[in-house]
């Protein structure tokens, strides 16, 4: 069996999931597929169990915040790796900020546990079905999600750095 390439992956996923594949592109040699968020868990499961496509390794889960894209503010990016075909691909789901829910994939890959907790901690995206969704890197009593673009990097209560000398007003990025 010869190795599959990007085009074959795309065709197979489109054939199986039809209208749920919203967009695709090939960036720097890597296939990016955008799907409706509610189908991503099934898509990853299908890819994992597929004989030829056989995606067996979860590389990374990342969150991204696009405040200007109304209705699609938060992206959850799943980066997968198929060792049989030595191929990496990315599956993205865009969530609106009013409904930040997406199904967890901890039942497919045990390593997704902390990756999803980190995404929750930084962006506030809720993974339904996660066994233990709470903050991981920040303090438990933190009441905001720091990686969102509206929050500044520095500590809000610092008193030794004067914003005027850095050319910004309070809370302006």
């Amino acid at each position: 069996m010869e190795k599959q390439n990007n085009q074959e992956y795309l065709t197979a996923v489109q054939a199986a999931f039809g209208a749920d594949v919203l967009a695709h592109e090939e960036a720097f040699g890597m296939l990016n597929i955008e799907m409706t968020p509610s189908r991503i868990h099934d898509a990853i499961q299908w890819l994992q169990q597929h004989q030829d496509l056989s995606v067996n390794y979860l590389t990374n889960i990342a969150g991204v915040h696009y405040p200007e894209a109304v209705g699609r503010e938060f992206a959850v990016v799943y980066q997968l790796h198929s060792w049989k075909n030595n191929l990496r691909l990315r599956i993205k789901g865009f969530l609106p900020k009013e409904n930040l829910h997406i199904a967890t994939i901890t039942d497919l890959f045990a390593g997704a546990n902390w990756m999803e907790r980190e995404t929750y901690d930084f962006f506030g995206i809720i993974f339904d079905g996660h066994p233990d969704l709470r903050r991981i890197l920040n303090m438990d009593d933190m009441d905001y999600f720091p990686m969102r673009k509206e929050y500044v990097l520095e500590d809000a209560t610092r008193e030794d750095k004067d914003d005027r000398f850095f050319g910004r007003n309070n809370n302006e990025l």
Partner: protein
Amino acid sequence: MGKIEDLETINGEGYQLTNLDKAIALARANSVWPLPFATSCCGIEFMATMGSAYDLSRFGMERMSFTPRQADLLIVAGTISKKLGPVLKRVYEQMAEPKWVLSVGACACSGGIFDTYSVLQGIDRIIPVDVYVPGCPPRPEQIIEGVMNIHELVKKESNRRRYSEEYKHLLGTYQIEIDQHGEAK
């Protein structure tokens, strides 16, 4: 390196006469037991200082005490985040008198390059510090100089420091209360 200058003594046939303070200071300075509170990169430089190229044991500091109860010197090497602040304060309070604090590295002194929401901008916001060693990370020679400065402080320190009003006031500014023996409550 590490040699303490001779005590002023009056030497006689079979006896020496000196101040008790000076003798105690000599003993204390040459056998400081450190508690390496090493969190990040400065911790690796501290381990290199402990290694044989920049030997710390020639100062009598080879016995690392990881329990605060038996430690004299708290060496904070590495970034302290806000999450870790209460832990550090607790460790400091558990140390028995006399105790000194050496802050190694830019992150422990002032937050370093990490001016972010999660990093404590300097450990002197929560505990009193005696000597600061800047650097990112400081070379082992710098850490040794910091240690030698601690030795100078140790030698000059009064045995009655813990009972003085000044000390109580200093710890009060960090919200650390001490009882009549000078131990933290």
